[in-house]
């Protein structure tokens, strides 16, 4: 395998080399003279009192098209006058308000919406040039003035429909079928780009769950075609790795992964790190390890907060001046070598620290720490996780999405809860520290209390509140987060053996497959497969100070086997029981490969573990799906 990338310069904080200085302050609205208001009661009260339509700009600090619109459309005098006189202008950062993004984003960023004063959507588009915006604002004003009552009537119908839906009887529960996993795989294979790797034609986005599913399901089912799809995609998408600083860009416009969009997001680094580490574990190919380290280099150098150890959200694509004017566009800048980049300045880093993406990074670090034998990553992850739980979690209010001046903002976002829950369970797996499991359980219980749909199962994306404005009043159960929630509760069941977690996972999965919405097929396939496939248990038996058993334990952690659970038992501590299995001890360290109901004969040498795992998988293939 040859990666199509030349790394012109390697520098690493971990290797003790120079750390480039980055600015960590990005504010929305640079380059625009619009008097933007925040989403909230003040803006809505003004819209109502002044009887004006709302212009909602859903934007992002890293978004190139948004910057351009600031410098053109929102700097245009005619647009400014129209907005000033006839509209209430609200600007929302998509990363700060995932709940608003879920309801108001269409297509991409920016999403430009015209709303009634009560927040219902009248019109939506993405980037608009000044003359188009002028026309839109003029016509919208005329339309609103002339047909206000009719528009309001139709808005009322929306709320009638929401109300009727809320009063409907409990939906029948669809049974889960193991064939859904293989059906997902079939769909993945149909969408696979066999020329360039990745899925579909263009643009090319990362599909981390599809790679996880390809490797994991292919591994369990011995499906070579699927595994090669995952590995080839990992190989080809390296075209989006920054050759100088490391870290992955956001996406490519072309099918062959060319013409990148250069912004770098924290979550993309986390998901890719996890997948490259998996590929390294699976194949032993050092190039995957190398790519993993290039991601870690970037995160530690650019996105790590030196004061708290937490992680910043993103790095911009362009180099901009203090007024937001683009000095060097990303396409030009990221083609330069390190010295020339230094001479041109730095793309800004959004210094906000969000709960969900920080959880993603700790989850990936914990996984990588073992496979790459980098204990520093475990230390870093635990530092961040401990801080997040201490500062951001209130069982009654839920997690806060971010902290501003030591005060939590936006509590109880489902996505934050699930991602931090996943990270806490990974921390428990890696460290064995029961505190992480207890925190994970407390978070899971808080999530049910705040967000679970008692009637139909599944979880809403944010808590209901009489103070919710606009479309926030619409209860929403997003498929992606609900599938992840089901996976979290299933894992809790495997870790605690408490049946209520299994029932919650089942109810949640059923509620997802029962809806007529299209589902992320790799993710739902993975969740259904996990539901039907018992996790592999690796039990290592030996005294605590026994070197041989520690070697067995280390090898057990190194083995690629998604969802595997590793435990060490000390014969001096009483009965060694896991699931329905009670392990014997014949005086020498051993490792057993099992499910919760059956075991193969023990192995005594670390190098025998892989072969015994293959035997177990073969036996499971013949009995499970």
């Amino acid at each position: 395998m040859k990666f199509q990338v030349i790394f012109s310069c390697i520098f690493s904080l971990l290797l003790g080399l120079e750390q480039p200085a980055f600015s960590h302050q990005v504010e929305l609205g640079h380059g625009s003279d619009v008097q933007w208001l925040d989403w909230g009661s003040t803006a809505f009260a003004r819209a109502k009192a002044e009887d004006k339509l709302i212009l909602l700009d859903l934007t992002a600090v890293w978004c190139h098209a948004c910057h351009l619109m600031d410098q053109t459309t929102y700097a245009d005098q005619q647009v400014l006058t129209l907005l000033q006189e006839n509209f209430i202008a609200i600007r929302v950062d998509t990363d700060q308000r995932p709940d608003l993004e879920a309801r108001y984003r269409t297509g991409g960023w920016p999403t430009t919406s015209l709303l009634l004063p009560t927040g219902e959507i009248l019109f939506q588009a993405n980037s608009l040039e000044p003359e188009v915006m002028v026309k839109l604002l003029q016509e919208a004003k005329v339309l609103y003035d002339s047909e206000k009552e009719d528009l309001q009537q139709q808005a009322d119908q929306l709320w009638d429909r929401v109300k009727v839906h809320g009063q409907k009887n409990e939906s029948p529960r669809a049974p889960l079928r193991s064939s859904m996993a293989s059906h997902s795989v079939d769909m993945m294979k149909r969408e696979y780009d066999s020329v360039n790797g990745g899925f579909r034609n263009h643009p090319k986005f990362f599909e981390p769950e599809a790679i996880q599913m390809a490797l994991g399901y292919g591994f369990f089912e011995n499906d070579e075609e699927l595994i090669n799809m995952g590995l080839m995609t990992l190989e080809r998408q390296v075209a989006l790795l920054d050759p100088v600083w490391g870290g992955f860009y956001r996406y490519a416009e072309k099918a062959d992964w060319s013409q990148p969009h250069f912004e770098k997001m924290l979550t993309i680094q986390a998901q890719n790190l996890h997948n490259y580490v998996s590929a390294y574990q699976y194949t032993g190919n050092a190039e995957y390890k190398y790519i993993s380290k290039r991601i870690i280099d970037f995160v530690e150098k650019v996105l790590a907060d030196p004061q708290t150890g937490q992680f910043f959200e993103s790095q911009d694509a362009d180099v901009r001046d203090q007024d937001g004017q683009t000095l060097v566009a990303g396409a030009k800048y990221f083609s330069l070598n390190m010295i020339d980049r230094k001479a041109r300045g730095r793309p800004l880093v959004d210094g906000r620290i969000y709960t969900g993406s920080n959880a993603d990074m700790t989850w990936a670090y914990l996984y990588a720490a073992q496979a790459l034998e980098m204990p520093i990553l475990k230390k870093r992850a635990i530092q961040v996780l401990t801080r997040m739980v201490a500062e951001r979690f209130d069982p009654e209010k839920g997690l806060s999405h971010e902290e501003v001046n030591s005060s939590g903002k936006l509590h109880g976002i489902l996505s934050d809860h699930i991602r931090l829950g996943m990270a806490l369970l990974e921390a428990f797996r890696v460290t064995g520290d029961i505190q992480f499991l207890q925190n994970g359980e407390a978070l899971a219980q808080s999530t049910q209390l705040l967000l679970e749909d008692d009637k139909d199962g599944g979880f809403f994306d944010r808590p209901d509140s009489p103070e919710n404005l606009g479309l926030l009043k619409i209860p929403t159960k997003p498929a992606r987060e609900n599938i992840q929630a089901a996976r979290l509760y299933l894992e809790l069941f495997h870790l605690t053996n408490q049946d209520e977690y299994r029932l919650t996972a089942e109810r949640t999965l059923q509620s997802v497959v029962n809806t007529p919405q299209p589902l992320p097929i790799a993710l739902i396939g993975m969740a259904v497969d996990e539901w039907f496939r018992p996790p592999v248990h690796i039990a290592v038996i030996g005294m605590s100070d026994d070197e041989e058993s520690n070697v067995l334990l280390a090898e057990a952690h190194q083995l690629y086997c998604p969802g595997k659970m590793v435990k060490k038992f000390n014969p001096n501590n009483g009965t060694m029981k896991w699931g329905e299995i009670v392990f014997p001890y014949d005086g020498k360290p051993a490792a057993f490969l099992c499910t919760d109901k059956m075991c193969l004969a023990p192995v005594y040498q670390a190098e025998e573990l892989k072969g015994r795992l293959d035997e177990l998988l073969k036996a499971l293939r013949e009995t499970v799906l």
Partner: protein
Amino acid sequence: MSILRIPIFFCIYTFNDHISLIHRLVELKGLRHGPNGPIYGCFLDTFFLFLIYTEVGAVIRSYQGCLSESGRDKESSLISLTSKLFINPRQRNEIS
């Protein structure tokens, strides 16, 4: 050109059509298009997507879902559920 009052086109596409159409619009009109997310699919029979777009190619709204054999009811309930309201009285009948 009028943005709010031009006829809109109301189309039903299969999944693959949707992807290629969106990309074609991006290419032809230079529209900025964000992530279209992971591969989506259905365990029911058909993936559908309604695109409502203007003559300049801007996608105003999209509704997507899955249909079973007797899927018309599901389709209308999905649109109710989606609940992102596009209001233009003169075009409303074409949507519903």
